[in-house]
């Protein structure tokens, strides 16, 4: 906002309607308690494919996908309207992996062929995507082999890597840079192991042993994948910040309702000033976070130069807000808040996971400082 006019931070009538519809649908069909059900039943997917298909039919999965790839051709801002609502109930469906990481990588760097092959399937809810970029002890390298490359190494905690139809893998190319490759997980040399995390999002270890891919598997330009990956992670950060905003709103609303009803010493505990003032602090943080999330989403559609600083702002602030909200929510729920029986604990697990994903707040503050020249 330095010096110029503030972006529009309001939803238009269509977006308000979309938000309302999504809110009602998700509250009805996808309550947060599903996280426990999927966990306890050791569900292979960890989410509902039927629900994903229904959301495709509602048009939500193709909101931002261009019409020529069977989407609705709207903006990232519209997508964030749905993401915010999906966050309210901590939906474990593959929003982040498919709509944020995979789709954004293709939109920003994919060839027309790649987009044609995958995006219509994404919009229809039939194809799932993933992006492997986190590594632990075995970095992925790409070496030239014939006309193409061989990929070896291991990616960790690849969100929805266990179900994705295609996984985009970042790889170091002969010390010259980073290249993103579109990998079919059924290729020889790819092995996938499901991982279980605290937050109920599906993830996998993706091991690659001399996996042969052609030049047509490259997403973006060879050796220039780092910048593309940054741009993708910016969008993913903004989208996840929208989910965190929704999750914070819901955890806060549940908490306010609880302290209005729960009585001790013969009065509702919400009448105690010690809780009231902390509740107002959380309310304040959420209000500020809403502004920065909307601004980041708007920048992605309208003002590319603002995207790095505003997405870092949104990710840092939404992370701090969500974690603080969730911790206060548990504290104000008292004993029931730390039981597995109550859903509020899932909010804190997700908050911690989201805090750590796509850069911790301190990393985003460092980037913010660099972008502002200090």
């Amino acid at each position, binding site marked *: *906002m*330095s010096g110029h006019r503030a972006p529009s931070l*309001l939803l238009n009538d269509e977006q308000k309607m979309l938000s309302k519809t999504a809110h009602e649908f998700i509250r009805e069909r996808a309550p947060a308690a599903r996280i426990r059900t999927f966990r306890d039943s050791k569900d292979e997917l960890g989410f509902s494919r039927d629900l994903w298909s229904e959301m495709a039919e509602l048009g939500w999965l193709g909101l931002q996908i261009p019409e020529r790839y069977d989407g609705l051709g709207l903006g990232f801002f519209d997508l964030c309207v749905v993401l915010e609502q999906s966050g309210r109930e901590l939906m474990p469906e593959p929003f982040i992996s498919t709509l944020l990481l995979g789709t954004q990588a293709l939109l920003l760097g994919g060839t027309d062929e790649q987009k044609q092959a995958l995006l219509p399937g994404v919009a229809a809810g039939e194809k799932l995507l993933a992006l492997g970029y986190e590594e632990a002890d075995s970095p992925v390298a790409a070496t030239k082999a014939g006309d193409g490359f061989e990929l070896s190494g291991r990616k960790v905690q690849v969100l929805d890597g266990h179900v994705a139809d295609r996984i985009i893998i970042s790889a170091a190319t002969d010390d010259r840079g980073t290249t993103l490759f579109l990998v079919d997980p059924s290729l020889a040399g790819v092995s996938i192991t499901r991982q279980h995390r605290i937050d109920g999002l599906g993830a996998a270890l993706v091991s690659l042993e001399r996996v042969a891919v052609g030049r047509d598997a490259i997403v973006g330009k060879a050796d220039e994948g780092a910048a593309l990956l940054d741009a993708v992670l910016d969008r993913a950060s903004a989208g996840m910040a929208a989910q965190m905003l929704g999750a914070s709103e819901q955890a806060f609303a549940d908490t306010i309702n609880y302290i209005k009803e729960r009585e001790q010493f013969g009065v509702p505990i919400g009448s105690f000033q010690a809780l009231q003032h902390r509740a*107002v602090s959380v309310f304040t943080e959420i209000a500020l976070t809403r502004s*920065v999330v909307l*601004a980041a989403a708007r920048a992605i559609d309208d003002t590319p130069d603002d995207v790095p600083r505003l997405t870092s702002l949104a990710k840092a602030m939404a992370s701090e807000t969500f974690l603080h909200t969730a911790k206060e929510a548990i504290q104000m729920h008292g004993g029931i808040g730390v039981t597995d029986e109550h859903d509020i604990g899932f909010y804190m697990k997700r908050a911690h996971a989201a805090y750590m994903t796509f850069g911790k707040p301190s990393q985003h*503050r460092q980037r913010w400082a660099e972008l502002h020249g*200090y």
Partner: protein
Amino acid sequence: MSELDAFREEARGWVRANAPKSLWGTSGSGPFEGYWGGSKCEETDPDLLRWRDLAIEKQWTAPSWPVEYGGGGLSREQEDIIHAEMKAIGVPRPIAGQGLAMFGPVLLEYGSDAQRAQHLPGIARGEVRWCQGYSEPNAGSDLANLQLKAERDGDAYVLNGQKIWTSHANLSDWIYCLTRTDPNAPKKQVGISVILADLSTPGITVRRIDLISGYSPFCETFFDNVRVPAANLVGKENEGWTIAKAILGHERSSIGRSIARQPGSAQREVVARARKHLGAGEGAIPDPLLRDEIATLGMLEEAFHLTLARIQQSAESGTPGPEGSITKIVGTELKQMRFELGMKVAGIQGLGWEGPGFDEDDLQYTRDWLRSRASTIEGGSSEIQKNIVSKRVLGLPEGKK
């Protein structure tokens, strides 16, 4: 182009053509920054005075007040646009202060035609400066406990008692007071009346209060058998509490906004001080922990400005949200955070009170830091604000305070 967009173009054109260049970039354009006027005003900056006169001529000092009272007869939306255009180039409003921001709007809502005609034109021309008589030694956060006595005696009220924190009473011409007209009312909120007093009336004494910063923006104002005309009662006798709350509403929203300054300015200020005092040239500030704190400040500042923009956009679209209630809490926290950090990066160079070995900017900064501690107390403490948000926005049940 919508009508408002067309007006925005007109406002931008006029402001940019008429605001003296020396004033550009000098102000956050808040309702309390700049020229306050009044008969005791000693302002000599010719550009500031010219800006005042041009705006009076244009009738844009009180854009949304009716024309017959010295206003511009415009809508609130148009007024917001004019102020936004001033803020966009960082020039002060041509006339600022209590009269325009707080007392005038209340008189428009609750005053009689005669009172409006008597008082509003002088405010709009910057000729009469007003101050507020609200708090008393035993009525701070518990404002309804106020005791300044006003007894009816013929066609006059006789005032006895004391007000405190009467900002700039020493520079003002008139005071609007909350008084106790019925000491036997069943509830303390009942029996309060708003009465206006010319500060030159015999029996009024004003004494300045020195703050920890060394500044004296506040006064104590004593009333000793002060006779004011009964016609100076605003609204109905004993029903002043409603008016008092309306004025406080104006005050709190304007304090939040007035603190806003230019987006990014708090961060720039602290970075500049860090470079000066840590001996760091261009590039990264060498202390990573301080850098992280400055970034936290910069992010909060941006979030606050985006939130103010969002509040304004919601209001313009006719669907104001509940966020307006938090601007004072956040704005004052931000201000204190900025000064805390600015002092932290200065180290021992921030310890000077006056005299040799300290430069003027640092001395001033230290005084401003000390002054900033009052921001979360004055105009309704943050704790009172939180009580209000808790009750009115979150709907939490009232308990023992």
